[in-house]
């Protein structure tokens, strides 16, 4: 007769494989590392090519210009661009016993990105055998994101902006790893295609219960380099539509400004022009949403 075999839960002793305890410890490490981060904010979109990294970099620089201590985590592990936009050149990652040292970009912004790890033009590849890679590759990417959060010496920050790749998968990872996530800034362009893609991704944010801090409509018109007038670029009104669906404000509509874009690609911030004004407005609105509006609420005491 086959003996009765107790089930997992009937065996009340600790899990001797130790796997669960280690995963819990990993999460704890992230929580402890981010304890000195006042606001962790994700910048996301369901659509690629809408300028998330540009918006992230622009928000980061504007916040830093106002005296906030800012970090940027480039969670687009396969297509990192935020580091360059923040003026971080090719520099190796330094790992100390206390953690990896983030690169320092424009205005003292601390940056972590696969750009600091990969050789120039090298794709993100893993050392493990390619066979059955679909099973474990996502797990490794989640592990990389976890280490970028928990193993980097971020120090004290007013804002940690996390630049997410298109889609929702990385956002799901981030929300699991950072229960204290203050909210999400959603980036779109005005087009109907963007509207549809972004609205799908809103559902995930809503289901998570995390606040949608606001919508940034990027490429909202084209800023004429000669006269400064903003003219239409894309047909559509996605920013307003998404904001209504998300019950969140449009933080700003940023017109496409070739000069601002070129400056950003070179790691510089345009201090004037239509795009710069829109970014400043977006930061004003974001700070307001986070209860940090007004000079009195500025911990860094910046301008």
């Amino acid at each position, binding site marked *: 007769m086959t*003996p009765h075999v107790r089930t997992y839960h009937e*065996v009340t002793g600790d899990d001797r494989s130790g796997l669960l305890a280690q995963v819990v410890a990993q999460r704890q490490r992230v929580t402890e590392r981010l304890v000195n981060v006042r606001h962790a904010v994700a910048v996301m979109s369901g659509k690629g090519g809408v300028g998330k990294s540009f918006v992230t970099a622009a928000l980061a620089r504007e916040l830093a210009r106002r005296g906030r201590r800012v970090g940027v985590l480039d969670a687009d592990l396969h297509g990192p661009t935020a580091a360059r936009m923040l003026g971080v050149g090719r520099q190796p*990652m*330094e790992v100390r016993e206390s953690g990896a040292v983030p690169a320092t970009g424009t205005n003292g912004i601390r940056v972590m990105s696969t750009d600091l790890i990969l050789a120039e033009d090298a794709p993100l590849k893993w*050392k493990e*055998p390619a066979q059955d890679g679909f*099973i474990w590759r996502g797990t490794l990417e989640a*592990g990389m994101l*976890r*280490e970028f959060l928990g193993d980097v010496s971020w120090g004290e920050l007013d804002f940690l902006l996390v630049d997410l790749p298109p889609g929702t998968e990385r956002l799901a990872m981030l929300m699991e790893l950072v229960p204290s996530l203050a909210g999400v800034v959603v980036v779109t362009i005005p087009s109907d295609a963007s509207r549809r893609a972004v609205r799908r991704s809103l559902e995930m944010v809503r289901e998570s219960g995390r606040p949608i801090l606001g919508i940034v409509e990027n490429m909202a018109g084209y800023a004429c380099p000669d006269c400064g007038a903003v003219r239409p670029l894309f047909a559509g009104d996605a920013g307003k539509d998404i904001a209504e669906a998300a019950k969140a404000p449009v933080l700003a509509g940023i017109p496409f400004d070739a000069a601002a874009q070129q400056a950003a690609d070179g790691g510089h911030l345009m201090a004037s022009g239509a795009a710069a004004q829109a970014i400043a407005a977006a930061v004003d609105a974001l700070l307001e949403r986070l209860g940090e509006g007004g000079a009195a609420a500025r911990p860094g005491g910046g301008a």
Partner: protein
Amino acid sequence: MKFLCIECDTQMGFEERALPGDGTLAATFRCPKCSRSVAMLTNPMETQLVSSLGVEIGGRTVPAQPMELVQSKVDGGASEAAAPGGRPTWDAGANERLTRVPSFVRGMVKRIYADYAAERGIVVITTDVMDTARRELGLEGM
């Protein structure tokens, strides 16, 4: 994951873990009552899956190091990009070997290997690096 000795209806305890080097893993568990032991043998895919989580079956004997997964798993990345001033990290094989060093001297042994690697600009300590260090430093047996 729990292992139950059916004969004794007693939970087995973790005993030993080994990486034979062919991508597989062997973990042994022993019944504290009757001393019967079993080995859990994982295939390369299962081993990789566990490794991808940044965890070790049976628990860690050496604490996780900063950016351990990034430094040991990214192909052609961290090992070429890490700064000379940084402390070296340990890949899975080297970590595994380190766990076999008696705990009361493990810290010292680890420091010796780490200093050896740092002095030579080696950023990821592998079993090959450990073998070379043992020969060069006369550490046979460590």
